[in-house]
């Protein structure tokens, strides 16, 4: 495969709580190529979210280095990280994290607000993304007026609106029923086929099975990293 989109070396994260130190991540080294669809698995507390937060430039590692698209991001300042998150990354959360009392359209347009996109372009771009994921009719709806699956689609549209290279999804199906989960996975597979790199955390084997590579964590370390013959989610529907 081509040059690595993600490369981490000895990535370590300690949470210091008083005299207690929790070693959440203990020296993770791996790389992920552009275009991969990776599932991160492991028992609860094994460090999956910590790893994702570091990949997402939401937190600083205690030690180790991280290159994203050739740029070393572990050395960047807060504002520079914000710019990286804005331009290169898209986030999908377990609990959607949509702004309440804000329309689907405005939720999707939110990253554009911080990306110096002219006001006149924001809504058309957001609308295109919403249409692409099949929510053209729900643009004016507020999150409370949407089902869980629809809310997660809006969140995915928001993650995509800035044309990111990498989408990070921490248990995106954790709050959804199994049929809706498969729908969301089908959507992510489709996006992956269009060229977007996806790293997804899940503790369900059924969900991980839709990925092309499965990395397993235990006690803050990678214990297994194997390719996977991905099932086609669209066919499973």
């Amino acid at each position, binding site marked *: 495969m081509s040059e690595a989109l993600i490369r981490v070396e000895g990535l370590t994260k300690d949470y210091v709580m008083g005299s207690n130190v929790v070693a959440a991540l203990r020296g993770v080294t791996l790389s992920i190529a552009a275009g991969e669809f990776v599932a991160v698995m492991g028992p609860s507390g094994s460090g999956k979210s910590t790893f994702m*937060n570091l990949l*997402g430039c*939401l*937190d600083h590692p205690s030690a180790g280095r991280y290159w994203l698209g050739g740029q070393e991001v572990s050395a960047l300042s*807060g*504002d520079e990280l*914000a*710019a990286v*998150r*804005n*331009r290169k990354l898209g*986030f999908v*959360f377990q609990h959607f*994290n949509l*702004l309440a*009392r*804000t329309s689907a359209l405005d939720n999707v347009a*939110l*990253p554009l*607000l*911080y*990306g110096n996109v002219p*006001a006149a372009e924001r809504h058309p771009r957001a609308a295109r993304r919403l249409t692409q994921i099949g929510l053209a009719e729900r643009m004016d709806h507020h999150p409370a007026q949407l089902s869980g699956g629809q809310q997660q689609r809006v969140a995915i549209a*928001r993650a995509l609106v*800035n044309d990111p290279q990498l989408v990070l999804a921490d248990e995106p199906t954790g709050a959804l029923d199994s049929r809706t989960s498969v729908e969301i996975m089908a959507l992510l597979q489709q996006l992956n086929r269009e060229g977007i790199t996806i790293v997804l955390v899940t503790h369900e084997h059924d969900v991980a099975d839709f990925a092309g590579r499965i990395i397993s964590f235990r006690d803050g370390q990678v214990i297994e990293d194997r390719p996977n013959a991905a099932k086609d989610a669209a066919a499973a529907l």
Partner: protein
Amino acid sequence: MNFAATLRIALLALRINKLRSALTMLGIIIGVAAVIVMIAVGNGAQARVEDQIKSLGSNIIMVLSGSMTSGGARGGSGSQPTITEDDAYALNREIDEIQAAAPSLRGSGQVVAGNANWSTVFYGTSPEYLQVRDWAVIEGRGFEQAEINGAGKVALIGQTVALNLFGEANPVDQVVRVNKVPLTIVGVLDRKGQNMMGQDQDDIILMPISTARKRVLGSSRYAAGRNVGSIMVKTKDGANMAEAEARMRELLRQRHRLQSGQDDDFYVRNLSEILQAQEASSKVMSLLLAAVASVSLLVGGIGIMNIMLVSVTERTREIGLRMAVGARARDILTQFLVEAVTLSLIGGAIGILLGVGGATAIAEFAGWRTELSGGSIVLAAGFAGAIGIFFGYYPARKASRLLPIEALRYE
């Protein structure tokens, strides 16, 4: 992120908690309204004083008869006549700062012309009187020196007297009887309007001081000898009033042969000082309003800070999400600062409306003169905005310093 978008987010956030926003604004509303009313009342009082100084003639100093100390017993102002016509002429002659000094003898009574009669006041004075009071003769002429010296039977009348005695007819060359003494009207005075006490200044007759003394006021003790009731002095433009007063006092003490230990037997009063004393009473009202204004603005500011802190806590996850999708610390800072300033400016705008209404109501119902100024409105709006920035800064900075991951995970 551009300003329009930031403003839209702020307005949305404030709309979501309408009642809370409205209550938060209350302190600012009251404070700003008080500022507007305060300045309107203060300016009104100032303008009133200035108008009165203008209508009196500027740079006026009054010399009044004082008390003569005799065997330890002292009378009040004017209880004994102590100043004379000659004092007035001496002031005129010897003090450089003085432009004109006019002695006056006051009387009052019925005046008759033909079969019309009217009750009015009259002054025996010198030609300088018109100069001192910036008063023009609009018809006929003023007094001539021969008439002053020879107790000429002539008079100048004010507009009110003219109207009541002669209606629309021209009073010049008509005869008016003052205390049964027939005087020929040689001129009519310009309209002056009311003075600071609300008295009609046009209800007046002027005559040469000698005429008043010898013919009209015959029996009054003021009229005896060369005594006068008061001397009205106008200083030259740009003259130092305090200096002029000091020199007048010195001259009069000399003329009255007062020893250095003795009290003055006259009073020197600067008229603008008297008026300023009146202005002081409305200043007390202004000060009270200023106190209310500053307390309200302070309380309003603290209220804004409090609500913004609550808002930052409530919206921690929102802040985390915004940071996750690319908001920089300064975007978050701006967002919450704009929200605080919007809150205080809306409060300020309502306060301005209320203050303008209040000032108008005070003028209408309490009869106070108030003067609204654009400057005070700009000042109040600026104050409101400054309060928003000052009290909104700490919560906004707190929001901007959150770490993205901790804000996102906040429960």
